[in-house]
């Protein structure tokens, strides 16, 4: 037949795809990476210092640039020609970055570790289910990822129950807290809530050819100096240097191809977006790291006569139990910050300091919290980062009917005194959050699109109410005035009516110890198709309050170690 059979195909180039490509190529394995978007170079394509006044519409969000003009993302929640359909419930916003490096080009770079309890929720609380792995299993991979990508964070002495930190010999020192964070931390301390430096993949010391952060500009624009970790500079460029990585960009994968016996994957089919042609490419091992929802979509679209429900789906669980970090916020005006000299609160853009969930390990009664998981809490002054029209409007609209010299005095006086106080929370395992294939709708490439049902649970609603209660307590302790409070509408509705929030989706191909109740084994390897692995957010079992990207990378590293071992053993 003369067809070229590669060693490994990885679909996707973000946190998971980049990680496996890096690890495999370092170990001498040849990898072909398929990316649905174009090639992208953060070194040359970002405009880190561009001012709002130098861009169209002061850089505000538009349907073309849904994260704002300067945001690195090519794509977003709505992509022309690539729709998805909404089924039941409050919905989900499906953020997609069509570019090399994927969503790591604009992420918040927050890297909290999942804690021991997060992997054993059922054992500890009788709720949800356990992961097939423990913190001890994943901790060495967290250490390796932290060392590789470079993170700052708190001292080891500040580790808390279920909120571990990076070992001191690996972590970099954190920057000083911003002034508003200190006011927040003081109030938290008075309420018995501990705060610490926020684990973050931003360099405070140089690492390889990546510079230390210079404490200015918005990380979501991308980082041309490499201080903020992204997959291109951190994983893909070093992988390219080995000479063992080939990248095919503009390759929209539609399905995984199987052998005649339907036992082994032999390759993938993709649309070459530059020509519209359908092409097949072959390899010994296939790794899907297309992003949580795209990976489930590919597997379901890979159905055939022998696997009518979709590939790797004997459990029927592909696309099921999706989750996304929930969020709550208050907008505050903080009188304590009035009449102070101007402050530079840019820092590393996102927060330097936060309060990990403070009730882990407490009994339900003691915590007053009838839900699994918790939430993390932090604050950001509107003066952190360049002024935007929205942030300025928050200040101008503090008083109605204001104009003229009084308006100018008002802007001067209140600028720097307003902030967003917010939580990012867990969500509970939920059978009503799932992805199926819409039988009627195809995208512009002729690929059937996902239909997303997403009905947030009552437990998630209860957790949100608890967040708001805490936010109000902290705000009050800070002596702050609440100027915007979405909980009023939330309580009126009595349930969650909007997409939950953070675009940190996980699940859909969960790992487990039993092939009947999971899609993947504990190594992120398909139970049904042994040479098929998943290396994005899809293998996640539950969704704690911690940002998921570090765990995506740690699981991807672990999966690729397993692939290296099995390729050596010739057992794939």
């Amino acid at each position: 037949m003369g067809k070229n059979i590669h060693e490994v195909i990885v679909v996707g180039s973000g946190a998971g795809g980049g990680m496996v490509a890096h690890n495999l190529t370092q170990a001498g394995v040849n990898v072909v990476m398929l990316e649905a978007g174009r090639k992208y170079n953060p070194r040359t394509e970002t405009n880190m210092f561009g001012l709002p006044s130098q861009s169209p519409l002061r850089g505000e969000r538009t349907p073309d640039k849904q994260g704002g003009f300067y945001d690195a993302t090519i794509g977003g929640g709505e992509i022309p020609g690539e729709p998805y359909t909404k089924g039941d419930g409050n919905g989900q916003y499906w953020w997609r970055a069509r570019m090399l490096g994927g969503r790591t080009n604009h992420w918040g770079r927050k890297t909290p570790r999942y804690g021991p309890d997060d992997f054993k929720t059922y054992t500890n609380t009788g709720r949800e289910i356990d992961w097939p792995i423990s913190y001890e299993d994943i901790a060495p991979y967290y250490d390796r990822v932290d060392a590789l990508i470079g993170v700052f964070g708190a001292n080891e002495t500040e580790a808390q129950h279920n909120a571990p930190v990076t070992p001191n010999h690996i972590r970099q020192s954190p920057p000083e807290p911003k002034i508003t964070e200190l006011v927040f931390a003081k109030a938290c301390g008075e309420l018995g809530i501990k705060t610490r430096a926020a684990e973050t993949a931003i360099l405070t010391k140089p690492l390889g050819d990546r510079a230390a952060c210079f404490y200015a500009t918005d990380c979501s624009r991308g980082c041309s100096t490499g201080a903020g970790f992204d997959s291109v500079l951190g994983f893909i460029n070093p992988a390219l240097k080995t000479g063992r990585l080939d990248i095919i960009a503009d390759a929209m994968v539609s399905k995984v191809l199987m052998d005649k016996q339907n036992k082994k994957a032999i390759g993938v089919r993709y649309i070459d977006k530059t020509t519209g042609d359908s092409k097949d490419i072959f390899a010994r091992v296939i790794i899907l790291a297309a992003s949580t929802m795209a990976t489930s979509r590919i597997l379901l679209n890979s159905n055939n006569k022998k696997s009518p429900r979709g590939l790797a789906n004997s459990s029927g669980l592909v696309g099921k139990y999706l989750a996304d970090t929930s969020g709550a916020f208050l907008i505050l005006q903080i009188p304590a910050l009035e009449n102070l000299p101007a402050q530079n609160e840019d820092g590393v853009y996102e927060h330097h300091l936060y309060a990990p969930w403070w009730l882990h390990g407490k009994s339900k009664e003691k915590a007053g919290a009838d839900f699994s998981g918790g939430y993390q809490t932090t604050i950001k002054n509107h003066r952190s980062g360049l002024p935007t029209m929205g942030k300025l409007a928050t200040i101008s609209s503090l008083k109605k009917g204001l104009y003229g010299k009084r308006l100018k005095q008002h802007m001067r006086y209140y600028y720097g005194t307003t902030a967003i106080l917010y939580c990012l929370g867990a969500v509970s395992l939920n059978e009503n959050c799932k992805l199926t294939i819409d039988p009627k709708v195809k995208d512009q490439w002729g690929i059937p699109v996902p239909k997303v049902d997403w009905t947030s649970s009552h437990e998630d609603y209860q957790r949100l109410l608890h967040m708001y209660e805490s936010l109000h307590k902290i705000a009050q302790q800070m002596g702050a005035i609440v100027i915007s409070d979405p909980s009023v509408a939330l309580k009126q509705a009595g349930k969650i009516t909007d997409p939950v929030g953070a675009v940190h989706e996980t699940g859909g191909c969960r790992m487990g110890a039993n092939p009947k109740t999971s899609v993947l084994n504990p190594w992120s390897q398909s139970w049904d198709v042994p040479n098929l692995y998943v290396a994005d957010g899809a293998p996640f079992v539950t969704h704690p309050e911690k940002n998921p990207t570090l765990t995506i990378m740690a699981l991807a590293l672990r999966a690729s170690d397993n692939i290296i071992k099995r390729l050596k053993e010739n057992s794939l």
Partner: protein
Amino acid sequence: MTMIATDKPMISINRRRVLQIIAAGSAATLMDGGSLMAKSMERKSQGYGPDIDMNNPEVTWDKILTQAQLKTLTIVGDIIIPADETSPAASAFNIADFINEWVSAPYPTQQADKDIIVGGLLWLDQQAKQQQTRYFRNLSEDHQATIFDRLAQSVENEEVEVNQKEFFERLIYLFVGGFYTTPEGMADIGYIGNVPMAKFEGPSAEIRQKLGV
């Protein structure tokens, strides 16, 4: 990325009401609107698209406001943001021209604002009629200020039609947003970031002491 809206304004838009205001205008005041329509037939109205050269930002659409509309907008801008001892008036940085860019953009938010702003400018001319003048822009500064102050007062006292309230609030949003995102506007309110530094020191000891942190 966190999709919680950290910087979205809390202002709603009612397009239909604003269209009603335009319809209620006299034939004379509709002339501006008429020329707007004619121009919009031939203008470039493409957005900048999803994949742009970030290092060469470019407005890809033509501006649609007439000279007369721009003049009125400039006058109103200097009432909203006049010169004071710290910074000049809105016209010093051509904020009316930025608003022209804004209302000409082919995106839904901006299209809704176009209706509000164009409708509101017609409404100002209607008010001028009560002063026996055809256009707001031809009134004396005192009369212009009086009309605008009456509008502001009615917004402050919440005794205002939804249409006029939206016009006022969108004007403030656009002039404040336009002005304080210029380098001089940012300096005025004390934004001192966006500069590289070797180390982030946090607040000074003096400020920490003052705040007890």
